[in-house]
């Protein structure tokens, strides 16, 4: 790209990041622009790596779910759920029905809070701070439900290999039903207000289009795929947990623009509310965990539909109590890469929004830390210093 740049005087680079007010987390996008039009994009990641795949083989199967829960604060149920399913797949364990229902309840609660978080941020990005504050206010009800049933607003520690750690008692149910009613009502109001607003429509429609063919070629998942008419959802396509026993719709939009992705997320909140109600009503009696005697040598795949798409975990076991290899792939890993095609042809003003439309989660995408001779090579402070240094270099370069 740099050679090309030298040859064309009209092309400029607009850097976004690694630290940027529009981003919650560090990521570096180099937009190559001609006038106002984005013609290419280069993505640099690696500012947020913590080495989970490196650390995991040193931990026991009981400890690994706690480690992967820390990959991300927003999908902190998806990673452990996929991870314990990989362990169960490897060992051939059948999870008791009650545990399957409890898993789904926590998982769908997480989807509601994550989608509301995104709607709020998207509103903030386009200058609709009312949407941001409303969405986050409604999200608070979900966090309180989490605190009630898991003891924590985030990092719920709900899953363990073979089942779940905590039961939901009869006394805990009425507040959850009440919260669901409230969230459903408020989400409909928010959805109608957002989807009917002519300015929001004008701002989001036709922006950052990812076609179905591109979605398939880049193997994107979740709302990013479903907003492009690529009809995939792990909850339906790969029956697991209690999903085959509840009724819900998969929201699919054909347009592929930012508006379609927003619509998919907003309507999915309503579906999640439906799933949680059914699970609470149908919750079967019985044990909440199966006993695991050993994890035999072999391999297992576990995956689940996180708010952003499919979370994928692969575990290889050598018959000991630790994984030999543990591969983690978060949905953003596939979704962020597809930005390269989604921003091309758009304007600079739309680029930041398009980049945010996949609901990127950088914590999930990157899980590596730089170790050398047994020591952490870059501390957080040093990374910060490197970043400041880089910003300083750029400042000088652009002020010339």
């Amino acid at each position, binding site marked *: 790209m740099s050679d090309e740049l030298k040859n064309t005087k009209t092309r400029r680079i607009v850097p976004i990041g*690694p630290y940027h007010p529009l981003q919650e987390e560090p990521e*570096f996008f180099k937009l190559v622009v001609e006038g106002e039009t984005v013609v290419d994009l280069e993505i*640099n*990641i*690696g*500012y947020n*790596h913590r*080495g989970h*795949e*490196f650390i995991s083989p*040193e931990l026991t199967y009981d400890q690994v779910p706690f480690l992967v829960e820390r990959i991300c604060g927003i999908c902190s149920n998806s990673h452990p759920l996929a991870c314990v399913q990989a362990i169960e*797949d490897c060992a*051939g364990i059948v999870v008791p029905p009650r545990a399957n229902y409890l898993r789904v309840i926590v998982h769908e609660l997480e989807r509601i809070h994550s989608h509301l978080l995104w709607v709020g941020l998207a509103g903030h990005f386009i200058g609709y701070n009312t949407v941001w504050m409303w969405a986050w206010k409604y999200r608070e009800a979900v966090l309180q439900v989490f605190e009630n049933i898991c003891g924590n607003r985030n990092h719920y520690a709900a899953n363990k290999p073979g089942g779940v750690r905590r039961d939901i008692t009869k006394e805990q149910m009425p507040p959850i039903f009440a919260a669901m009613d409230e969230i459903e009502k408020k989400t409909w109001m928010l959805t109608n207000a957002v989807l009917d607003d002519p300015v929001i429509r004008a701002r989001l429609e036709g922006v950052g289009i990812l076609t179905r063919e591109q979605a*398939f*070629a*880049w*193997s994107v*998942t979740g709302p990013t795929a479903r907003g492009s008419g690529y009809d*995939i959802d792990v909850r339906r*396509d*790969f*029956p697991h947990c209690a999903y085959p026993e509840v009724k819900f719709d998969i929201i699919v939009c054909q347009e592929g623009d930012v508006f379609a992705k927003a619509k998919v997320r907003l309507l999915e909140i309503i579906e999640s509310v439906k799933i949680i109600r059914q699970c609470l009503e149908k919750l079967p009696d019985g044990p909440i965990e199966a006993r695991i005697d050993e994890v035999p040598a*072999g*391999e*297992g*795949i576990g*995956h689940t539909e996180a708010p952003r798409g*499919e979370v*994928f975990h*692969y575990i*290889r076991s050598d018959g000991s109590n630790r994984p*030999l*290899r543990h*591969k983690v*792939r978060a949905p953003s*890993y*596939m979704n962020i*890469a*597809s930005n*390269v095609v989604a921003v091309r042809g758009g304007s600079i003003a739309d680029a930041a929004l398009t980049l945010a439309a996949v609901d990127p989660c950088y914590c999930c995408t*990157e899980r*590596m830390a*730089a*170790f*050398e*001779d*047994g*020591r*952490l*090579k*870059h501390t957080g402070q040093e990374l910060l210093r*490197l970043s400041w240094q*880089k910003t300083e270099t750029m400042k000088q370069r652009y002020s010339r």
Partner: protein
Amino acid sequence: MREHEARFKEIFPAVDIYEHNPRRLYLRIPREQLTAAAKFLHNECGMRLAICTGIDTREGFEVLYHFADDGNGVFYTLKVLAPKDDPRIESQANWFPATGWIEREMHELIGIEFPGHPNMKPLLTSDTDWDPDKRPLRRDYERRAEEHEN
């Protein structure tokens, strides 16, 4: 449910199929056939690439291509092996953009070569002064006890 498996066997008779359970198939193929097999699963059968896993084993570097058959709910995992003295596996990135990042990551962390990749620079450490010869996910990478003291 398994028409893809039957067709795969027909086209690639050298495949060694292990069925872990009805939803998890592992297909071991010679590495020369990888591109044809991946093209068959993605283009012909409409499967999505979940991700690749690179593993350093005693026999060599093993690379797993996890393909998700969303229509039938089955995972087809292609397994190829590259010997340690010749760790090369043909890159898929020029026809299949979903493999672009993960091939860079496997090259960076394990040291597998992917000839034909259009942009083989480090994915995670391009902005640091990390020594590119150090491969943290190799078995011979030195793990010391002190690293947890930090």
